[in-house]
């Protein structure tokens, strides 16, 4: 049996050291079991590779005991040495995706099944370590700063329920069941992720039963899918949001000078109709958001008062712009930089790999037109936009994030250390940096919440990173395919592409209630055969007919 999941974002790389796209995380979540995992209900740490752990010193030192008889999918034993090697090596070599989590950690092997992790500073995320543990015996030869980032990670050796079997970029990723996984063996043996460049095609494929489930369905298709009795639609919330990011100038390439003026940015915020966009693009499945969301746990979201909020108010935006000296002196409908400078035309980069990016480009142009600001759209794919961001060669773009449970990684993206990497606002702030370090070491949950709230208020007030709306995960599965899907978080979370995506190991094929569930496909194949035969007959027909008559004539 095979479970096929459709998705609309392609993989860039399968290497967990450098990748950052959602489908990549999904792959690693399945292939690499964590030392600890998250509860499907409330994100509390649960046993993973470690069956238990001892808190030696809160936030500073933990000793984990691994399950007995763990092995990698290729049969090599999985030992404490693998755990320690991952933590220590990634820290020493500053692996891109790992360093934020392990910079303060060191690990020591006690025996085959026991490992102690210590932190140099109090670390609230412990006992969760927050990295993917890769097999040392495979990765050691490439673990060098010069080569680690170009490793393709197609080895297919892992510790989770399924491991990589085949991969075609922009097409599909196939995983097979891992016979050496410690958990209950899944009820099916093959898991395929199929990439659709066209979301419509994915909707149709789901309806036709070509795929069993799908992630990131277009909001526009929800009504249609809900009407289908064989399909269950899930709108999963796990803190994901979208933003219009501005270039705040910390990179080499400089933005339009107006963007460096906070008054201009405030006006920009007032010009954006978040509610309207959410309604039109999400068909009511989403709602506006005030500032960035850094955790799947909603408690981390600060309260922004009505007075502080940048509500949609083009009149106010125009007032601010007038007051700040951005006037349209030549009357061409577009404001100029103060002192009769050039027309203000923002270079908006449209990421062609991101859903709704085109539509947001259209809307953004419209919103800006209303406040007298020009927009020039240009298209990039994920890769190119990354380069553009790092080079600072843009003014604005639309993108989205899905946070982890621990807020630190998300918060780290706006620190100075991430400039030239994940800092997609090209922004840094001294106070934010200080608070970032403090929250990282604050072990009291309430105090940490306050620190994070303060950081997010700074982001909000700086008006440089316009979080526009939550981006719920619109997912669906066919009820005649697999059952036993698990939401994470349990109340309103998604069924997969979540923090640890527990569904894959738990779902099982629906026992067919009479008849072959594949009937539609078969009749379709039959029709294809008929049509092809008919085509061949037609094309040969004319020729044969004339032939026949000719030979009849010759017999006369």
């Amino acid at each position: 049996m095979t479970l096929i999941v459709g998705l609309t974002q392609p993989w860039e790389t399968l290497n967990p050291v450098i990748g950052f796209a959602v489908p990549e995380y999904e792959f690693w979540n399945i292939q690499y079991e964590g030392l600890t995992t998250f509860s499907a209900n409330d994100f509390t740490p649960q046993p993973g590779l470690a069956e238990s752990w001892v808190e030696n010193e809160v936030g500073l030192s933990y000793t984990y005991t691994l399950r007995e008889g763990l092995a990698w999918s290729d049969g090599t034993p999985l030992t404490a040495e693998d755990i320690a090697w991952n933590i220590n090596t990634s820290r020493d070599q500053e692996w891109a995706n790992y360093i934020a989590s392990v910079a303060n950690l060191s690990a020591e092997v006690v025996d085959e099944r026991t490992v102690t992790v210590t932190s140099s500073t109090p670390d609230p995320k412990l006992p969760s370590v927050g990295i993917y543990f890769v097999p040392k015996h495979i990765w050691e030869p490439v673990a060098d700063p010069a080569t680690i980032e170009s490793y393709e990670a197609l080895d297919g050796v892992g510790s989770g329920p399924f491991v990589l079997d085949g991969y075609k970029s922009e097409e599909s990723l196939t995983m097979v069941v891992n016979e050496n996984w410690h958990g209950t063996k899944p009820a099916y043996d093959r898991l395929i992720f199929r990439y659709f460049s066209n979301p419509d095609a994915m909707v149709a494929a789901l309806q036709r039963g070509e795929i069993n489930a799908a992630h990131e369905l277009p909001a526009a298709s929800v009504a249609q899918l809900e009407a289908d009795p064989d399909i269950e639609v899930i709108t999963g919330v796990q803190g994901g949001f979208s933003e219009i990011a501005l270039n705040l100038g910390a990179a080499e390439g400089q933005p339009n000078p107006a963007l460096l003026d906070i008054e201009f940015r405030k006006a920009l915020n007032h010009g954006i109709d978040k509610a309207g966009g959410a309604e039109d693009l999400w068909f009511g499945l989403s709602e506006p958001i005030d500032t960035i969301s850094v955790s799947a746990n909603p408690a981390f979201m600060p309260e922004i008062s009505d007075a502080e909020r940048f509500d949609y108010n083009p009149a106010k935006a125009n007032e601010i712009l007038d007051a700040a000296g951005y006037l349209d002196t030549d009357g061409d409908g577009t404001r100029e930089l103060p002192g009769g400078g050039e027309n203000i035309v923002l270079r908006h980069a449209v990421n062609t790999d991101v859903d709704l990016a085109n539509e947001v480009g259209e809307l953004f142009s419209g919103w800006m037109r209303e406040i007298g600001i020009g927009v020039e759209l240009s298209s990039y794919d994920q890769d190119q936009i990354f380069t553009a961001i790092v080079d600072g060669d843009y003014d604005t773009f639309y993108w989205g994030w899905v946070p982890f449970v621990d807020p630190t990684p998300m918060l780290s993206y706006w620190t100075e250390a991430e400039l030239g990497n994940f800092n997609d606002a090209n922004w840094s702030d001294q106070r934010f940096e200080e608070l970032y370090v403090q929250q990282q070491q604050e072990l009291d949950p309430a105090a940490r919440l306050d620190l994070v709230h303060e950081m997010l208020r700074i982001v909000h007030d700086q008006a440089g990173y316009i979080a526009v709306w939550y981006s719920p995960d619109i997912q669906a599965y066919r009820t005649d395919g697999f059952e036993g899907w698990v939401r994470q978080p349990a109340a309103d979370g998604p069924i997969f592409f979540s923090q640890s995506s527990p569904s894959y190991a738990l779902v099982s094929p629906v026992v067919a209630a009479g008849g072959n569930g594949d009937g539609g496909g078969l009749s379709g194949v039959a029709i294809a055969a008929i049509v092809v035969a008919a085509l061949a007959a037609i094309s040969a027909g004319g020729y044969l007919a004339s032939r026949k008559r000719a030979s009849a004539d010759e017999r006369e």
Partner: protein
Amino acid sequence: MAQFISKKVLGSTLTLVFVLVFNFFLFRVVQPDPVANLFRGRNVPQARLDQMRTDFGLDGSRLTQFWAYLRETLQLNLGFSYQSRQPVWDDIASKIWPTVQLVGLAAILSAAIGIIGGVIAGWRRGSAADYSITSTTMAFYSMPDFWLGMLLLVAFAVVFPWFPVGGMTELGVEHSGVGAILDRLHHLALPCLTLTLAYLGEYAIVTRSSLLDVMGEEYLTLAQAKGLRDIQVRNRHAVPNALLPVVTLAAINFGFVLSGAIAVETLFSWPGLGKATSDAVLGPDLPMLQGLFLVFSAAVIVFNLAADVLYAFLDPRVRPA
């Protein structure tokens, strides 16, 4: 004959060299340093960048760079795709067969149907059959192929969901033998029909006008005088002569098979070279685009050569002694 062929081969080689030169300058102008692009600004040690530049033949003067490029290209070393990070040639090679299947089949079907239609229309010029064939094929010829595909998609995958909306195989279902072939045909039907309809217009129009050219010839009157049936006159004497230019057209068109279906492959998510092109456009994935362009050009040049040689075999007047 050998002299004739070697002369033609020489001409084709020259054209290929021109394409190589053109390719080199076109892409080197827009993309002076592919290596820096490959790492997307990540912190990579300078030594490694230098090493890669040497590997890619990017150091030294333009001329040395060109020789390096030529050497690498001739070994099918076309660099690395930005998107898949695979060698461009590997990526392209894996996509040739799907395209050949889809577009090749459509090319054959459209040539067969288009020629038959053109012959029927031309032989009975001015008849109802001529009128309907000519206007239908003109209409197919005048619409964007992908729009025709959209209409077929709406009709036969949405309103009547008989065919899949895209892709090449049904994933996850292990077909074997006949099942696999039927599954492939099932996916092939709509895109193939689209391309067949889109292409057949040209064949019908050219065949018809070529047949009209032939129809005034005296040897047809002679054939009629010999006592041949009308259909025999047509099939034995008129069609073989009328098809000469059509054969050339077909051979040249087959050269465009590889590059022919960019929009239609995109529409039907057919994982071939056409879709690879439109994917590469969005990046833009320049190394991939460069490789695809080279492969497309080479295919056209080779088939042009084939068309010349084939024509020489078919038409005794051109055939060298």
